[in-house]
């Protein structure tokens, strides 16, 4: 329960619902409608939704040392530079644009982190909760890079797209923020409304390599 905050300069909101509310991720229905092509033993592509993550867009001036300091004190993460990311166990901070970053965290933590950020930051900045507006598709396996080559014009070679790099680029006819998590493990952040299209495109592009819906077995914990 929250109240209208007439006394603050911005309206922030704890957006977590009551316990019995059913959340549906962006790909809730798309995943149910998809058929795998091969079992995990033969598959060279693994595809799954890293659903319901907390997502905050942070805007600010990177050259303002107070801003960078505020970010690192609130998140315990360095503010990443161009096309880079900073990662901890609980969070990942992705460079999006010269004045924009995307923070990925636990959905339950999003409000607490937003509050922490607002306490730590001063001057001109913005924090926007976009947790419902986009989702993360994970693409892994030995042929994952081939699937990306079919889908986007940006080069995904080891030298041009090393682990940790982030690039926002065209994914077929939509857009994705692509992060290389590990050598064969990729994260694609897509707009919620385009997620079904992106999912169908990726499953289609994966078929020839053998597609398993879900994480690779060795990743199961």
């Amino acid at each position, binding site marked *: *329960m*929250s*109240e*209208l*905050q*007439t006394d*603050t*300069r*911005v*309206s922030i*909101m*704890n*957006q977590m*619902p*009551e316990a*019995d*509310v*059913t*959340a*549906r*991720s*962006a790909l809730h*229905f798309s995943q149910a409608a998809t058929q795998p*092509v091969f079992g995990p033993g033969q598959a060279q592509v693994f595809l799954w939704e890293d659903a*319901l993550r907390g997502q905050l867009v942070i*805007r600010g001036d990177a050259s303002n040392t107070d801003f960078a300091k505020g970010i690192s004190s609130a998140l315990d993460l360095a503010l990443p530079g161009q096309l880079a990311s900073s990662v901890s166990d609980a969070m990942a901070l992705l460079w999006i644009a010269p*004045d924009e970053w995307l923070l990925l965290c636990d959905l339950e933590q999003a409000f607490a982190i937003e509050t922490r950020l607002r306490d730590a930051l001063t001057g*001109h*900045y*913005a924090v*926007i*909760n*976009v*947790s*419902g*507006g*986009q989702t993360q598709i994970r693409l892994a396996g030995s042929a994952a890079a*081939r699937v990306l*080559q*079919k889908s*986007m*014009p*940006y*080069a995904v*070679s080891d030298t*041009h797209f090393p682990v940790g790099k982030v690039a926002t680029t065209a994914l*077929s*006819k*939509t857009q994705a923020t692509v992060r290389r998590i590990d050598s064969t493990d990729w994260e694609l952040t897509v*707009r*919620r*409304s*385009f997620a*079904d*299209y992106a999912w169908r*495109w990726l499953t*289609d*592009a994966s*078929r*020839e390599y053998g597609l398993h819906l879900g994480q690779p077995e060795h990743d199961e914990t």
Partner: protein
Amino acid sequence: MRQTNRLADGGRIDRSKPLTFSFNGRQYTGYEGDTLSSALIANGVSVIGRSFKYGRPRGIVAAGADEPNAIVQLGATEATQVPNVRATQQPLFDGLVSQPTSGWPSLKFDLLGFSGQLFGRALPPGFYYKTFMFPQAAWKFYEKHIRKAAGLGRSPTEPDVDEYDHLNQHTDVLVVGAGPAGLSAALTAARSGAQVILADEQADMGGSLLSSRSRINGVEASQWAADTLQELAGMDNVLLLPNATVNGYHDHNFLTIHERRTDHLGDRAPEHQTRQRMHRVRADWVVLATGAHERPLVYANNDLPGCMLASAVSTYIRRYAVIPGHSLVAMTTNDAGYQAAFDWQDAGRKVVALVDTRQAPTGDCVEEARRRGIRLLTGHAVIEAKGSTRVSAARVAPLSEDGQHLTGPAEKLACDTIASSGGWSPAVHLSCHTGGRPVWNDDVIGFVPGDTLQRQSIAGAIAGTFDLAGCLEQGAQQGAEAARQAGYEAKPASLPTVEEPDTGNAMALFCIPHERRISRAPKQFVDFQNDVTAAAIELATREGFESIEHVKRYTALGFGTDQGKLGNINGMAIAAKSMNKTIAETGTTIFRPNYTPVTFGAIAGRHCDALFDPERHTAMHDWHVRHGALFENVGQWKRPWYYPKPGETMQQSLDRECLATRNGVGILDASTLGKIDIQGKDAREFIGRVYTNAWAKLAVGKCRYGLMCGEDGMVFDDGVTSCLGENHFLMTTTTGGAAHVLEWLELYHQTEWPELEVYMNTVTDHWATMTIAGPDSRKLLAELTDDIDLDKDSFKFMDWRQGTVAGVPARVFRISFTGELSYEINVPAHYGLHVWEALFEKGERHNLTPYGTETMHILRAEKGFIIAGQDTDGSMHPYDLGLDWAVKEDKPYSFIGKRGMKREDCLRQDRKQLVGLKTKDPSIVLPEGAQAVDDPKQPVPMTMLGHVTSSYYSANLGRSIAMGVIRGGHQRSGDTVYYPLSDGRVVEAEITSTLFLDPKGERQNV
């Protein structure tokens, strides 16, 4: 049928793998490794098609991409039809079905051939312009028959069953062509560690090495090619792409490669394999090693089946172990032409004569010909072929030293095949795609690539280097240079030793003289596909077409699917000669992508069917589908259009949805409206500059409607913006305008007012928005929230409140696009469906009715609310729309569009202005777009007053309503105007206010 022309041994075919195929309805056999053309030659098939204009029989001329005649229709089923396949480039597979594309109505009895000369006279050069353009209406008739007669093949009438896709590639070096220069370049570049792609249009890489008689490092040239390919295949940094034609070379070293992945396997691609793939390559450096095309010589009746390129004869014999005839006359202007005679003789068939146009040629080849006892006629030429559907003899005559006239009587030599070699034209095509102009080189006797702005080099025959050792050396040099340019250290390669014959100088000769002058001699063909003759080119120049581009267009030279690979240079030489110019002065036309035709499938890739265009879905999409909604495309969004119940017509559904909303409560999925979160201390100031109305005093907790105009003062978007905090606003936009509005705000922020501290972010997808509208909406909402005070005096119209709806944190906006009591509930999208279903659970006893965009349109029209983009078209300012109240002229800082809407033209009183329209007959719904006139009896062209922008049947009012623009309409309330319709009816309508319902606006203030 026996393969009568198949040699007993040799060739790169696999005799243990026989394949059956059909051509023109007859069954034949060939072997794995054959092309369709080599298999047809093996079976003694001479006539492949009929020519376009004259209906003359035509046979196979070439062995590669330059083939003009052997153009076939491929496909065993309707769905797998492929038109315009060059038989020379189609690998044979078991069960291949092919048909001639030309030769309508049949190869044997040809309608055009029958009327031969007569029809030919009707098709002089420039016939497109002279014959068929008038009367204009007849062109459709002509075109249909010309296409059919032209041998352009046909499209399948069923959808393609195969899949095609695209693959993006990034590489340090792209080498185009895997002949001697290309292999050498790829090897040198790859050894440096650079990423290399080597692409070749043929299934077998090696190019000319595969049919060469020369030796490299003591082994056959084809063996060296195999060894080199093996080394390349073993390197991680090399991608070999056979069956892959580099078809387009675009700016910034972006090249498209058309890879035929399964065309050699069968009629259809195997499961899980795409038939063709378009590689979209971005290369740091490109080496063009595309080789050269042999030029045929132009002589009388040179289109008879049996007239071939000398190099093609060698290729068929050495690579495919087929021989195209029994007795050969070979004519050449250079040493390369000798090989055809040697290969022919080695295959055990008769070489009647070797005709060299040079007076006194010398060198290894000449000596070998003498040693072999071949009858060598120097200073001679084949001036004419004889025969009806196949060569039966060659007429040979002595030639002057300059090759321009005959010096003695002709001798008739019986033979069934005439091979000719007029030298080699570098394959400059790709170098032209990015704007490079080829330049004539007298030593090469050909055009070579001119300067380029691309990061690119050339190696081998494309550069005019025709000897094997030179090709290997130049390839290695350019491969090393490519690697260096891409940042690698390339070691100088040790060049292989080459054993090849010494060659003498070639003679520049294109058109062989005849006893009669060109215009009277039997036809001397230059462009086989378009039936362009030497006489036609001469005629074109006589008629005043002096630019080579004009000659090309007037005669259709090089306009076929082969792009004139065979005939263009000869045609230019003939044009130059008839204008007494040099070829260099005449110049050349240039080539465009694609090098060879590309299937539409490969261009489309997977961007077809369900993946053609993205569909955007809201969080409640699945519910709409389950409840039978029909959808309307709004931008890329799928919006519920209306929800028909079984047996309902569309109008019945709309009537039900409209009445339920006005009398009870309806619900609309409004998630698609654009939502922009605006934060920063200057947010309010910024909004005041982009909207026409005032924002300085909007209090936290309040909402306001705003109009957005371009610099010209014309409305392009509208929406409600709410003050969330002193430094925080939420702007809504139209569904289709969301992306443009955000870009517009960014544009102005970044370029005009960077000093304003404001950040804009889209939150369109984050919030699921549901609008409940109608007199019962408050009662319904009250059942789902206990922390929002819904009392009409504390939560007023144009207020917003934060609270909890159905257990979910929500922002609720009391705004209305229907004129009813209405709440827009915004919740994070994850919970959108939960809240939507909770509303229906509680809404059942309120008869909660879902409505779609069509009902939304009707309800807002009843209130005269505009839709930007429907009632506006970019030429209407706020005053035209009667929205004077939404323009605040005296804001301290100007706003976008303020000056624009004050232009003289914008102040005219007779501008088209938005008004309401009521038809005299309330049952008639005016068509949107209908034009109003004052006097329906005025003769056409009538004076038009403006058009209908929105028009519906309103169940609430029991009559039709419409909005539209009328010149000076705001001063004409009560007037009658007339709408003459295309079906002859004239609809009478009265100009009214746009407020059709509840003019005082009481329903939304309850």
